[in-house]
């Protein structure tokens, strides 16, 4: 497995996924779309962690453990973020991040 695919290939795939997620989080106007971009970025980070575990430290569990904690934090983040989106939709009748601007100076 490690002979067939160089580590760089996996890292480049994860980097591309991170950049696509960053683009989505920055350019989407819909708040759910922004959250989807953040999820893509978290997945890219997880790919990196698993790849480094597999190629550099396959005998230790640290990489997989870190990836599991990232997944747990991502689940918590998604739950709270979507609850906030629903609460904002109730009072503003919109999910467009640009039109929620009551804190703008």
């Amino acid at each position, binding site marked *: *497995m*490690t*002979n*067939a*695919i160089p*580590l*760089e*290939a*996996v*890292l*480049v*795939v994860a*980097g*591309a*996924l*991170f*950049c*696509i*997620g*960053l*683009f*989505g989080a*920055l*350019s*989407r*106007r*819909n708040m*759910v*779309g922004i959250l*989807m971009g953040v*999820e*893509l970025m978290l*997945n890219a980070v997880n790919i990196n962690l*698993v790849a480094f*575990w*597999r*190629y*550099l430290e*396959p*005998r*230790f569990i640290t990489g*997989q*453990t870190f990836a*599991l*904690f990232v997944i*747990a*934090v*991502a*689940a*918590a983040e*998604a*739950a*709270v973020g*979507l*609850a*906030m989106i*629903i*609460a904002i*939709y109730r009072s503003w009748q919109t*999910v467009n991040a640009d039109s929620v601007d009551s804190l703008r100076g």
Partner: protein
Amino acid sequence: MTLVIQLIFGLVAALIIGAAMMVVLVRNVIHAALWLIACFFGVGALYLLLQAEFLAVVQVLIYVGAISILILFAIMLTRQVTGEGVRQLVGGWRLWLTVAISALLFAVVIVPTVASQQWNVPPPLGPEGAPEPLAGPAELGRGFVSEFLLQFEVAGVLLTVALIGAIVVAYEERARRRRVLTLAEEHELRKRAAASDQPAGD
């Protein structure tokens, strides 16, 4: 064997990148969420390829099973977001700025850094032909109750707090709740509106 693994890796990478592109570019938000599920499946397949079987199962359970459903529910609870006519991306110079930021981050920072680094991958351990000693689910479970016990408990507390916080934030008093139209009622209303637009000839 090597060629087969490389072929599978290429397919999985194409699936991940293509699905992620569809997630950020497609107009309909529900379609974006479905492409997100495809992307999560691709990442799970990549974990399987990297021999992290437990993480692949966790990925499918949590991302595909829980987070995607949560996102789909949030889309359904916030109406008027699937709209085809609504612009989904920011416009003008802001769009080009975000394109430039992500493209430059990828082309100028990530790829040169990855390519110029000497990664020093250790050769497979053990005797030739024997399976490599890999940390599996058994070691993970043992680590969670010994080495990473504090972090494990903190993650549990975090999930509990997030759950209660989500309920508190999204909770709505019954008295203040508005009547929400079902899809059938909305369809009926739209049909009636379309009928009233027509001249009342027939």
